[in-house]
């Protein structure tokens, strides 16, 4: 099996180790990983801020890079949701691109979705350790409808203890341009999230979106907490 990996701009710049963990995991399951050259960003920052033309430019580029029929896999619920739900809408008046967008939307998968649904990774065990809590990212959960998959994978981390977080689905406060435009509210939300994490007594908080984990990690640091924020693929890759 072959997949195209969409690394996302966030991971490209700030969290390359998350990209590497994704590759490691996929290859472990015998998947050939192709990294289409020239990939940039899905266009979500512009789309969410109301810059439709700029978002279309990014999307058009994405569609020119990710061609063919292989599944597109990405370690970001938010970016997967962008391709799946907003691309078809962005090109609804352009029949040629609309068709391409629909095809991309049909073959895009968030990593936990792909690991569970296609590779059945939850059926093997990984070496886990410590106490883990999970932040349920908004776009992964609400837009993609991916709720159970990350929990199944956490359960496969044998040796680790899962401690659910109250209000796991409450937004961390990132919100893309939101964090830049209303930083005070963004910080307040992140701190509230950090408090929820700390209250679980976990030593690691995990999730499916690097942007949320970044926000939470920063708030934890500001709270003086030693709890680590790690993407789920990192925990799984470490436990192979």
């Amino acid at each position: 099996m072959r997949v195209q990996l969409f690394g996302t701009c966030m991971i490209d710049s700030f969290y390359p180790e998350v990209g590497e963990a994704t590759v490691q995991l996929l290859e472990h399951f015998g998947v050939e990983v192709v990294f289409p050259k020239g990939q940039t960003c899905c266009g979500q920052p512009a789309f969410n801020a109301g810059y439709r033309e700029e978002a279309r430019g990014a999307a058009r580029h994405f569609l020119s890079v990710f061609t063919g029929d292989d599944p597109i896999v990405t370690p970001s619920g938010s970016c997967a949701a962008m391709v799946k739900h907003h691309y078809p809408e962005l090109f609804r008046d352009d029949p040629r691109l609309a068709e391409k967008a629909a095809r991309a939307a049909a073959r895009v998968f968030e990593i936990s979705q792909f690991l569970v649904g296609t590779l059945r990774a939850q059926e093997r065990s990984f070496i886990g350790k410590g106490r883990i809590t999970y932040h349920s990212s908004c776009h992964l959960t609400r837009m993609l409808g991916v709720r159970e998959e990350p929990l199944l994978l956490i359960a496969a981390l044998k040796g680790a203890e899962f401690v659910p977080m109250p209000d796991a689905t409450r937004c961390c406060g990132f919100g893309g341009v939101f964090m830049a435009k209303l930083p005070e509210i963004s910080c307040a939300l992140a701190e509230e999230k950090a408090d929820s994490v700390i209250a679980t007594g976990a030593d690691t908080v995990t999730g499916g979106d690097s942007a949320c984990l970044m926000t939470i990690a920063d708030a934890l640091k500001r709270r003086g907490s030693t709890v680590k924020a790690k993407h789920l693929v990192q925990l799984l890759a470490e436990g192979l």
Partner: protein
Amino acid sequence: MSEEQGSLHFRANSVASIADESLRAALRNAADTFGTRRTLAFGSVPDLEALREKASAIRMEVLDNLPGYVDTFAANAARQGATVHRASDAQSACDIVGSILTGHGITMAAKGKSMVSEEIGLNHHLQRLGIEVVETDLGEYIIQLEGETPSHIIVPAIHKNRKQVGKLFSERLGVPYTEDPQVLTKTARKVMREKFLAAKAGISGANFAIADTGSLVLFTNEGNGRMVTSLPPLHVAVLSIEKILPKLTDLPTFIRLLPRSATGQAITSYVSLITGTRKAGEATGAKELHIVLVDNGRSSIVKGECREMLKCIRCGACMNVCPVYRTVGGHAYGWTYPGPMGMVLTTLLTGMENSYPLVDASTLCGACVDVCPVRIPLVELIVKLREERVRDGLSDRRERIGMRLFGAAAAQPALFGWGEKLSRLLWPVIKKVGGEKVAGRLPEPAARPFHRRMP
């Protein structure tokens, strides 16, 4: 928009709210309580999704034929003895109500909770005419005593705690201080009962207007809505035109959805139907009923891209789950309607040039979309409004430049790579310029980006 109703300096307001510990405690309590109650209440509804779909379809049917339904409602209400008035904007609505009341020599009116009356600034207008308006909903009464505006559409005084209410009552009503809600409620009952029995006019809003019977429907828990609409000989109902349901038989769907979404109750203590004026042989009902149908921009909103906003039945569920509302409270939004529905509705009603910062007040987390009983695609509408702001040239200049650069880079890998390199080089500067709460929260860029690690 009247100045008295506050400003839309959302960010400045929110900074003040965040610093207010007692406000934040009240908001957290409200969000958590409402969240739990709502979930429990819908546990007993077998096919919630089908019910939401049905409610949404009924509301869309009204919006698709709004002028027709307004006419049908008006004709049927008139047939039942009501006098129906059409107000194109806030000022004309206030003028109509004012002239009805002054024409009857009214000096004091008992009023039930009505958000549209807040929207049009009715109380101020009537006070200028020398008419005392007594808010009779407990929450509205509390904020009226304090000289504030509602901070929530269902629980207007949600920002106040029991100590603050106790202090307010003892100062204003001369009763001994207590912070027991039951005792405070009893005090309000006593004060208000005299007002009800003395008032020669009642002013109310309405949750729905039924086109095929000409009835008004009010959902209340306290009973003040019933008093206001059935005790005084003159009743003036003020409602916005989109509140119509086509048929009386559509009502059960909304009885099942509205209270559950609003307060987590299976039904409110009272669902009142008011159909025209007192008829021969009847011992109750107002002798004169005036219904003021307020447009105030809705006829044009219903033709626009954000028309679905008018499906709203004002349950407040979206604000109860909104992380931003939970953090800043209703007053930060600066006008009548707060939370996700408020961001959209305020922008539509007051115009983008007056409200453009408001459309930033969402992380687009979608919690509101999950709970909206009539399935308003709030996130989609918020993004649409942001697009409109960009089209209108009202977006922030630095943001515009940034997004143009981003757009160009995202479409050209070489440029994107340079951008990454450049920001890595300039990182100390970016950190400094970007500020503690923005750039200060980002980690250091990786020395080698991911794409250079891949074959």
